[in-house]
């Protein structure tokens, strides 16, 4: 085992491979930062260029891109409340308030170190799990996918503290939007009103760009001024203390990494769920849950650790069965096939050096990207001082162009614009946008998996408890749903004896 790990590193430590790794990292950083682009676009654009490369070099390049994208995404998420990639939307929630308080450097520093640590922990988990990857992937079928989707929705609903009803409303809206389009189960086309573009449904990335990037810029223009509320408070020198913050919250990093690793390995669920789940669980476990959303550094560390951990484990279903863990992985599969590497159980046996080399490339790129990100913090944080009159139009333009660039459809731009306005209204009237995102991501999976489960079991519900993994997930859902009530009960029980001791007045 160790010998294969080492052969992976050895193959990577050639000058050509390292150069391509660095190139991939630079591209990943830039593409990750620009909303709407991201890893899948970068890999798709690079694919024809990899044609002439050796397979291993192509893997080094791809690993470089995939490892750096999250860091790029977190920078724009923190500075502009515009997530560079969908999973980074969770980083916006506490990252942007920190930037508004002038602590952009602190946030980016924490994101950088969380990225690196998450990536390392993710890598170790993947290396440990790869030998039993096949069996693990086979444990998750439609019943488990359905319960996971419900788990994701429940987790997010229970963290809309005090705004539970609003959370449910926006979540319901997200689910409704998720059902638009061609339904793979029945063959019906729903709610498209004859618009051909909507046959594939409302795509997540344009909607996300609208909800966060555009909405935020509209808000900024209405408010006026700059992102950082007071220019004097922009302390970019707190970068190093930001890096150290991660080490001060080891539980958060570990929790985020584990969630990222586990969720990332489940195909189709993807990075968004990993980051939001990690965020929500951190809020739940915190002693001061109300401080989240206002600039709690743990709210940056948790999702960032999850995102980088998920990158490594998303390789598991991709390499073991050729089932992409997400859009990025789907393009990566194409690169593999182009180079004659057939993903599948055989690959795990025959191409071990390549696989381990890729995993190391991912990790190296992730750490490198964090360092480069740190070097760029100073100039980047200046963005928060740019006046909204300049910043907003520029960002909105980039957002709309990025939305179009995904696959060249003008429909994407329309979606971004519509969701931009909706997002602004949600901001203005204080409705959570988190639930819309999660519902959009999970709605389709939940419905499809439920129908498949029913078809598998001829309409019986017993299947959810007959399989041990679904039984476990069901238990987790019940606990999560019950825990706020439980907490309140415990709180009241503790308060009663004290009240009894109060002297009668």
């Amino acid at each position, binding site marked *: 085992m160790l010998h294969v790990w080492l052969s992976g590193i050895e193959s990577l430590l050639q000058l050509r491979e390292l150069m391509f790794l660095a190139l991939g990292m630079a591209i990943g950083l830039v593409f990750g930062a620009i909303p709407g682009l991201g890893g899948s676009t970068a890999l798709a654009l690079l694919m024809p260029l990899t044609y002439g490369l050796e397979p291993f070099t192509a893997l080094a390049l791809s690993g470089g891109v995939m490892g750096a994208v999250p860091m790029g995404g977190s920078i724009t998420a923190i500075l502009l409340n515009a997530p560079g990639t969908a999973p980074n939307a969770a980083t916006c929630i506490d990252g942007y308030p920190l930037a508004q308080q002038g602590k952009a450097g602190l946030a980016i520093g924490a994101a950088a170190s969380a990225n690196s640590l998450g990536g390392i922990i993710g890598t170790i988990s993947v290396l440990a799990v790869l030998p039993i990857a*096949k069996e693990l992937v086979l444990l998750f079928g439609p019943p488990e996918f359905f319960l996971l989707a419900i788990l994701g929705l429940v987790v997010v609903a229970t963290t809309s503290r005090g705004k539970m009803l609003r959370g449910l409303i926006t979540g319901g809206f997200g689910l409704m939007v998720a059902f638009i389009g061609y339904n793979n189960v029945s063959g019906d086309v729903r709610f498209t009103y004859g618009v051909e573009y909507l046959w594939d449904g409302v795509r997540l990335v344009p909607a996300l760009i609208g909800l966060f990037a555009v909405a935020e810029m509209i808000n900024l223009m209405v408010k006026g001024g700059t992102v950082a509320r007071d220019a004097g408070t922009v302390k970019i020198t707190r970068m190093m203390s930001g890096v150290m913050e991660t080490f001060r919250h080891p539980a958060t990093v570990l929790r985020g990494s584990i969630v990222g690793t586990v969720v990332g390995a489940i195909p189709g669920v993807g990075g968004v769920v990993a980051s939001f789940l990690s965020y929500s669980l951190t809020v739940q476990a915190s002693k001061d849950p109300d401080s989240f959303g206002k600039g709690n550094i743990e709210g940056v560390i948790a999702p960032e650790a999850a995102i980088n951990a998920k990158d490594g484990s998303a390789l598991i279903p991709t390499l073991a069965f050729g089932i992409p863990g997400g859009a990025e992985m789907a393009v990566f599969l194409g690169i593999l096939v182009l180079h004659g590497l057939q993903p599948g159980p055989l690959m795990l046996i025959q191409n071990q050096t390549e696989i381990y080399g890729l995993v190391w490339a991912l990790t190296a790129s992730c750490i490198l990207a964090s360092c480069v990100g740190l070097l760029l913090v100073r100039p980047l944080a200046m963005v928060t001082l740019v006046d909204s009159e300049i910043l907003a139009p520029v960002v909105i333009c980039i957002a709309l162009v990025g939305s179009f660039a995904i696959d060249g459809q003008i429909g994407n731009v329309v979606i971004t614009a519509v969701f931009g306005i909706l997002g602004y209204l949600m901001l203005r009237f204080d409705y959570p946008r988190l639930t819309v995102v999660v519902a959009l991501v999970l709605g389709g999976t939940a419905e499809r998996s439920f129908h498949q489960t029913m078809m598998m079991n001829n309409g019986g519900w017993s299947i959810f408890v007959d399989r041990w993994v679904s039984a476990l997930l069901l238990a987790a859902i019940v606990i999560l749903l019950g825990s706020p009530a439980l907490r309140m009960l415990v709180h009241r029980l503790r308060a009663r004896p004290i009240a009894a001791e109060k002297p009668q007045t």
Partner: protein
Amino acid sequence: MPDVQRRCLLVSLGMSGAALMLPQPAFAAAIYPDKNISFVIPDGPGGGFDSYVRAITPAMQKYLSQKVTVVPTNVPGAGGARAANEIFRARPDGATIGIFNVPGIYIQQERGNAGFDLEKLTWIGRLGVDHYGLAVGENSPIKSIDDLKALAKQRPVKFTSTGPAGTAYNATLIAAHLLGIRAQLITGYKGSRDYVMGAVRGDGDAVVTAIPTLRRMAAGKTLRIIATFEEHGSVPGATDATALGQPELASITLQRLVAGPPGLSADITATLADAMTKALAAPEVEAWAKKADAGLAPESPEQAAATLKEQIAFYNKWKPYLKAGH
């Protein structure tokens, strides 16, 4: 200027103007190809069709008389209809061609407001063809088609598949009917790897899909192929259409046909067909095909058009059965 001289001047100017406007002789006519060619793919990067196109376009460039780039262009969406529309509406100057999943794209055309007509396109050739096969999970108690038939007598056999707009769905229903097996489809899976995994996991009893996909999974000892729908079986240990007494099973195929817009000239079609056939025989393409287990099966333009008609006729024959909502 005196009258006569002016008239002469005007007449000579007029004549030279008219002469300039006359159709120019051959040296000014563009030699095809004179600009880059866009090779449209109906799927996103990373899919099966994408891999085929990206593997042959560099080779194709070598065999074209002028130095141009053949650019693989991904136009995903609407189950392939978006790409089909783009090719159907393109100018017939040879700058846009594309690859089609037949009969998959015909199913999309039947949807109604598709906007294109496959039989009007100018067919150029074929890159490959896949036959289908039937497999069960490695741990399944089912060992042969007869076992499946026995199971079907107790309850419908569950097959994992895509939605009704997919080729696999129809392939599964037709195959099950020809084999005399009562089938129930578990639909909703997103792609071929997804529903094959479903069979491996045990969501369903069996799966019908293209043979290369099955072979890949079987090599990793997760699947067992029990039948291939070919005249002469290519998988040892698995029975074939002839042995099963159902030669019609071999008509269930996935064709990767290439076409250009309606009205493409015969010269341009011939140039493209020639370049494609040579590219498919190129050593680097053959090497890729071997490694990727991708079948290469070139056809001439006339053969490709005939294949399309055959596939459409086959699908139309089965349409009433398929639409009866199984």
